């Protein structure tokens, strides 16, 4: 399951062991980076890699967060685009998606 900024606010159902990939624009050398939290234990964060879109000084790119649906349940992913040294209330963007994980193992489905 691949999600983008257009999926902000979405409610998604996935199967256990399925991968959820969320790609969001970010320009880390401005100091603003995505801070991500996931409620509950239905999801496990596997990675959050960053790749620049271009190569110039000050260029931004995409943050790609990869979650694994590890057990049945519902988890809400909250992400805030903010500077780590500033008040979280000063976040300039937010992203939320709710993921319901069913008990059917995605890996056994193949």
């Amino acid at each position, binding site marked *: 399951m691949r999600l983008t900024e257009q999926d902000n606010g979405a409610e998604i159902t996935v199967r256990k062991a399925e991968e959820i990939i969320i790609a969001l*624009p970010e*320009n*880390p*050398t*401005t*100091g*603003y*980076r*995505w*801070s*991500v*939290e*996931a409620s509950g234990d239905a999801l496990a*964060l*596997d*990675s*959050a*890699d*960053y*790749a*620049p*879109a*271009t*190569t*110039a*000084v*000050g*260029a*931004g*790119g995409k943050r790609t*967060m*990869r979650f694994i649906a590890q057990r049945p349940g519902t988890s809400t992913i909250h992400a805030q*685009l*903010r*500077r*780590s*040294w*500033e008040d*979280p209330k000063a976040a*300039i963007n937010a992203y939320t998606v709710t993921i319901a994980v069913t008990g059917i193992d995605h890996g056994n489905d193949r």
Partner: protein
Amino acid sequence: MAMTADEHESLWEAVRARNANWRPGHNSITALDPGEQRRRLGYTPGPDELSLLQRETLSATHHVAVDVVAEATPYPVSVDWRDKDGKSYVTNVKDQQSCGSCVAFGTVATMESRARVLRGVPVNASNGGALPDLSEAHLFYCGNSAGNPCMNGWWAGPALDFAKSTGVVPETCFPYTPGNQPCAPCTGAPGMLTKISDWHAITTIAEMKRWLATNGPLITAFNVYLDFYSYTGGVYMHVSGARDGGHCVSCVGYDDARRAWLCKNSWGTGWGEGGFFWIGYGQCGIDATMWAVDDFASIYTVGRRRPSSQPVSSANPIIL
């Protein structure tokens, strides 16, 4: 995902293990996730510029040579343009906010300081307001012709070329806001320009120090690593985390005792040491190349309708 006390302590341990002398702050997104440790960013050089990795290699080479050079050259052991005999030639710390406009901020900061040095107008002098706060928006949104400039970044050379060919208006003529936008300076812009007459790149530590000691700040660029966001003071050196990309700042001094450059960042005054930071010689490509503003073709002064037509140089200062 939030940075735990253990992770914060790990960063402290990494600082201590490397004998680094800087203070990481406790913030909540520094250690974003394990994947950050694996990521490696690509980078290719811009026109006539070194790649970030080339900058780091060259800086490390410079770093080794510093001690030899220090004994053979006559520049001072420390320079701080925020305090030159009680006078500051460094303008206020700005905030680029969410746009990748650091090249404009590093360039404008260096232009502002250079103009003040040439004219003998410190920020804290009675006539300190005579020289304008220059417009990063004009430089970035008018000079950077690439599409989506806030995400695509820029280069110091083209920024300086624009400052030479077109010039930069005061901030009041084109106030900065983050976000891609049209080139829209005020209607009186042609009569409010500060134009440099030339610029050059400096590639040796001795010349960087000589310029800083006698002429003013320099533009520089370096690699931002994950631990840099946590800097709250001391002399930064990279100890942990992957590279996030290139960043441009103004170098406003150095200190041989600390073995570090003093730089003015554009992340507001809430980061680092009031918006400034010390970075170790040879770290992160900081001293591979720096760029100098040689002189000005014209310097707009506040309250005047036209820029001065008289060439300005250190040998020919204009008394305001």
